[in-house]
């Protein structure tokens, strides 16, 4: 019952504070939109593609206003040309096989090339299909003509005999030749990073986790700090409330806001940007909720070491920003060994991992169980520290 009172109060205070509410719900959308345009095709950039020994039909099909084609001799190697001429990609053909090497330092450029290539190959397939159907159509028309004459002949015969005959022997139909659509086999290489380490699609789930973590950390931390500096915390402890009930009420209140924030951002990304999310949205929500709990308990814990809101802000470069580096935006497994170890002490490392696995690889609950457990442990650890730490105000 007392937990509910705290919970209701947290909600009410939050709803009163329209600016903070806007910060929590609208700022992520703003940042997402910005990132979307930064990382995705903008209409006036042009990506350079080097081609070597590629069929002219393919080159013609690939060509659009976002890519510029540069021709090379058969000896040219992808690695050298990409580096020398700063190409976004290099395409080499051997029979029906296309080997594409992406530079991939500008994710937007890779996306442009990928798009152009996909569009081009589809175009070729469609053209082939259209050609094929046209020959088929011609053949069919011919068959129809033959049939007509046949039927006419039969009707004449039947009229002569007075009986109808249905099972007339078919004349041998004309052989139709359908040419198979030109199928190019495409293999992709990446000079920097990998195919899925640079997509906005991949960034997005991690960003979601980061937003939740950042805002909940800051808002809940400052909120408890205010509670401490205005004396209401001491006043609260002059009632029969348990220390754990205060923390639980906070967890519920801010947890709810974190959930709403996640739902809004995920819905926004899925509907407005049409992001592909392979895994379950429910798992994404669950991970974000756990991240919110960790952020909340951490924020509350850290707020005990701050005496003002400004001092609370000082924890951001120390505790929040480094987490971004280890959240998976930069591949952790390519870091130096000792850095990889450091990564393991940050909650966002586990959160980011789980989010990426669910969103881009469709991993299920069992696949991210370890990460979830670690997050729960983080939340438990800090919550316990908070409950114990409040003994300073009241020993029971």
């Amino acid at each position, binding site marked *: 019952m007392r937990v509910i*009172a705290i919970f209701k*109060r947290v909600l009410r*205070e939050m709803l009163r504070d329209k600016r903070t509410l806007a910060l929590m719900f609208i700022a992520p959308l703003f940042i997402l939109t910005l990132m979307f345009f930064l990382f995705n095709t903008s209409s006036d950039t042009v990506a350079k593609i080097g081609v070597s020994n590629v069929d002219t039909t393919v080159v013609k099909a690939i060509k659009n206003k976002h890519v510029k084609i540069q021709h090379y001799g058969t000896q040219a190697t992808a690695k050298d040309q990409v580096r020398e001429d700063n190409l976004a990609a290099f395409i080499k053909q051997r029979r029906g096989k296309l080997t594409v090497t992406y530079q991939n330092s500008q994710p937007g450029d890779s996306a442009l090339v990928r798009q152009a290539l996909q569009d081009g190959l589809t175009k070729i397939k469609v053209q082939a299909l259209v050609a094929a159907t046209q020959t088929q159509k011609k053949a069919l028309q011919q068959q129809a003509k033959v049939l007509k004459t046949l039927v006419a002949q039969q009707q004449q015969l039947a009229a002569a005999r007075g009986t109808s005959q249905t099972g007339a022997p078919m004349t041998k139909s004309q052989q139709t030749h359908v040419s198979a659509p030109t199928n190019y086999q495409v293999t992709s290489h990446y000079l920097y990073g990998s195919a899925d380490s640079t997509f906005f699609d991949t960034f997005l789930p991690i960003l979601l986790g980061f937003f939740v973590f950042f805002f909940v950390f800051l808002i809940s931390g400052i909120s408890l700090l205010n509670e401490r500096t*205005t*004396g*209401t915390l*001491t*006043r609260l402890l002059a*009632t*029969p409330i348990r220390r754990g009930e205060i923390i639980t009420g906070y967890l519920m209140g801010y947890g709810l806001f974190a959930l709403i924030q996640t739902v809004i951002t995920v819905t926004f990304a899925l509907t407005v940007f049409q992001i592909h999310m392979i895994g379950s949205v429910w798992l994404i929500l669950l991970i974000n909720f756990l991240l919110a709990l960790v952020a909340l308990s951490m924020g509350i814990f850290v707020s005990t070491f701050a005496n003002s809101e400004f001092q609370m802000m000082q924890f951001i470069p120390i505790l929040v920003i480094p987490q971004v580096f280890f959240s998976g935006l930069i591949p952790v497994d390519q870091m130096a060994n000792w850095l990889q170890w450091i990564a393991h002490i940050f909650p966002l490392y586990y959160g980011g991992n789980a989010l990426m696995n669910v969103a881009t690889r469709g991993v299920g609950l069992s696949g991210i169980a370890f990460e979830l457990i670690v997050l729960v442990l983080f939340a438990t650890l800090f919550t316990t520290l908070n409950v114990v730490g409040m003994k300073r105000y009241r020993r029971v």
Partner: protein
Amino acid sequence: MVATTIDVRDVAKSFGSNPVLKQINLRLPAGQIMGLIGPSGAGKTTLVKAILGMEKVDAGTTTVLGTQMPNRQVMQRIGYMAQSDALYEDLTARENIRFFAELMSVPKPQLAGAIDHVAQVVNLTDALDRRVAAYSGGMKRRLSLAIALVQDPELLILDEPTVGIDPELRQQIWAELYQLKAQGKAVLVTTHVMDEAERCDYLMLIREGIALAQGTPQQLEQDYAVSTIEQVFLKAGRLQDESHSDL
């Protein structure tokens, strides 16, 4: 025999090397209003917090309503008003009172009635739905008092309840305190206002952490051979300083 609501025995407390309370003994029976007076920094607030179990004491015990403090459950039977207002500024006065009433487990059916009653006592009925951020200092003080009264506690501990409150309202509040006393409730109040001190049943003068004088106002005036509590206050202080310089 009248039940004892507060029983403080040999309490001592120091902050670091600064002794704030030395050997304080205090007993408050039910149905009495007890006043704590003393100069600023004498240790009144510290004593109040020690009684509530919110401040750790170095020696001695405090027992409230038969239970040794600190104790969580007993808090429900104590109405506490802190020296500095601790209110949620973004919420309305009604929401503030309701929140603390919920924490104090006031039954839901009685909630609305209790809020209206305490608002009337402190004369805030018309401003009940305004945000506390828009309140004046005196209004906040009254709201804090309303919160202390809302669960109809057996014991009221009020730390300077009438600071910033006009004389008319002060009369009204004291009338309410007398009414509570008539219901057999006990009140412990700290104050710097000497005419309020005169209205208490029992007074305790704390100075430099020592219970310098205690008794009914009349008794104190007799003991010090003066006619007002204010003079008791000054004379006792003078005597204490003299005894220091004698040493």
